[in-house]
């Protein structure tokens, strides 16, 4: 079908573009209004607003896209024309996003992910097409058969009970912190002091904590409400959001595994989150998210389904031995030992020893948990690496996707006869580390996973 004609975005964007342009060009707008009032001539303000609205309208007329047999092409820009062209066989994921204004008008932003890191001008983004077109476009871009868009198998659906994990994140407190910072900048710096006087410190702290929890839960509800993860023939489809609906379609052929993440607090409540390890999708953050904090049975169930081998997800790991354990303990206890030296020689009050004891117990607990987490598992198809306590993760990476191995040893590691083994892949975070593997088995792990290492002339 070389009938590929240049197509425009939805005409309804003629309404959205000017609004966005006004928001983007706020400084210019303020300038125009100030100029208008300063010169006592409101025409300047009107000219400013008119110019910005015109720019928005012009964006619609200057933006067009084309999908032909081989490439997809996007043309943008009024003065600086920009033409972005991608080979269709490089498309790895299709993401859609509908903010409130877009949803009211029945529009959806469509973003195409490739293997390259796309930033700014290099992002292939159709902002926006009408929502009815999206299913067809997505199927076409990902090369699905027309029949394959049939309803797939639902892997996970959001439940209100997932909200119990959201207070464990820092997002609410971060939002309050940001708001406080802005208030300080805006000249409300004296307000917190007055509040402390009015309500008392502890009550205020409790209030901030409660507000933080409420914000975190609210944000989680709005962002992840109605999440559905569906597996189709060769795509994985994720929809979430209450007001702003985001959809993400992953090409399953590019899936190289998954990362189960269990931060300490989340783990304590039996929760986990799941990230995709996929080519063309950043390894961290929103774009790789498959499941937000949810019961760990749900997360492991989905990962098992994707990996197709329960042993990879649940199976026991090979521990890294006594040298690795010793290094965890030395690191955790170095600070308490140094602190004890200070306490012995410095005239500090007796209660500081109580504080020291509590800190030491915490450090020991951390070391114990880190030793327990450390392990790996390797076979011809999957490499599993597990580590961490505060941020525990279990990376499951397909060995077919590993395109490089590094064995790194610091001076201390050489003395302890351990090494850090790094598997390089094009997917996810690009590097997956096995920390403090005994040096004599490091290359055996690599050779087990990658036949090209075992067959090389150096391996014996």
């Amino acid at each position, binding site marked *: 079908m070389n009938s590929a004609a240049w197509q425009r975005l939805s005409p309804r964007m003629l309404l959205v573009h000017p609004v966005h342009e006004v928001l983007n060009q706020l400084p210019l707008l303020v300038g125009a209004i100030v100029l208008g009032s300063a010169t006592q001539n409101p025409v300047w303000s009107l000219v400013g607003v008119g110019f910005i609205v015109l720019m928005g309208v012009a964006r619609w007329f200057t933006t067009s896209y084309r999908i032909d047999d081989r490439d997809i092409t996007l043309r943008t820009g009024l003065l600086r024309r920009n033409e972005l062209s991608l080979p269709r066989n490089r498309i790895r994921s299709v993401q859609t996003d509908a903010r409130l204004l877009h949803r009211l008008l029945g529009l959806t932003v469509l973003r195409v992910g490739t293997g390259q890191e796309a930033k700014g001008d290099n992002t292939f983004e159709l902002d926006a097409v009408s929502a009815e077109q999206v299913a067809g476009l997505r199927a076409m871009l990902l090369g699905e058969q027309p029949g394959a868009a049939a309803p797939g198998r639902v892997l996970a659906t959001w439940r209100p009970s997932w909200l119990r994990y959201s207070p464990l994140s820092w997002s609410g407190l971060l939002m309050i912190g940001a708001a406080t910072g802005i208030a300080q900048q805006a000249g409300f710096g004296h307000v917190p002091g007055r509040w402390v006087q009015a309500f008392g410190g502890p009550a205020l702290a409790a209030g901030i904590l409660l507000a933080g929890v409420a914000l975190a839960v609210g944000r989680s509800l709005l962002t992840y409400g109605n999440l559905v993860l569906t597996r189709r023939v060769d795509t994985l489809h994720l929809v979430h959001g209450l007001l702003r609906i985001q959809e993400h379609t992953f090409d399953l052929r590019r899936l190289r595994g998954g990362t189960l993440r269990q931060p300490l607090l989340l783990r304590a409540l039996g929760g986990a989150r799941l990230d995709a390890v996929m080519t063309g999708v950043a390894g961290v953050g929103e774009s790789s998210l498959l499941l937000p904090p949810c019961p760990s049975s749900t997360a492991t169930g989905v990962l098992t389904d994707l990996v197709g081998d329960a042993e990879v997800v649940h199976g026991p790991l090979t521990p890294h031995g006594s040298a690795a354990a010793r290094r965890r303990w030395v690191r955790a206890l170095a600070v308490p030992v140094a602190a004890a030296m200070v306490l012995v020689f410095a005239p500090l009050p007796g209660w500081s020893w109580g504080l020291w004891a509590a800190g030491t117990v915490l450090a020991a607990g951390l070391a114990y948990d880190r030793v327990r987490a450390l392990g790996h598992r390797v076979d011809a198809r999957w490499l599993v690496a597990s580590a961490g306590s505060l941020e525990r993760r279990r990376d499951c990476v397909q060995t077919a996707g590993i395109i490089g191995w590094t064995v790194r040893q610091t001076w201390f590691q050489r003395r302890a006869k351990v090494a850090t083994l790094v598997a390089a*892949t094009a997917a996810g975070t690009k590097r997956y580390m096995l920390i403090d593997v005994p040096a*004599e088995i490091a290359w055996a792990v690599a050779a087990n996973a990658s036949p090209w290492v075992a067959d090389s002339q150096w391996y014996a």
Partner: protein
Amino acid sequence: MGAPVLMADPANPPSRSAPLVWALGAAIPWLFIAFGQVVWFVLDARAPWLHVGAAAATALGVLVSVVIAPIWRYRVHRWEIGARAVFTRTGWLVQERRIAPISRVQTVDTYRGPLDRLFGLANVTVTTASSAGAVRIVALDVAVADRVVAQLTDIAALGGPDAT
């Protein structure tokens, strides 16, 4: 896992002039620091112990980065190109062995800095689709580097699947 499995080291050392180039490269910033100290001494010679301390620190820095590190690196650095993989050993305090399959190579780049040009050296970087997997073979004689690039591009048959 049974008997310890060892990986033989890659065979080829870098160019003979590599330690000299590394030492010169490291000496240049130290020259500026030493010059600054001389200026300081000329302008203000009141606290002799401070000057002696600073000079000792500089001398130690020069010893480590201009003498010890280049020699140590020259003893560690090795590279070899096999039938199916590139293998290097690099570093001094922190040592790395890195192997990448030639079939997954995306680009082969040569880089020559001013000092490299002066001494007829070249650095070859072999990149794969992973940002964590690039293999760097540093401080080769130009003739060797050209041969390496030709050999790699020949085996790699660039344009095949790259595991993305």
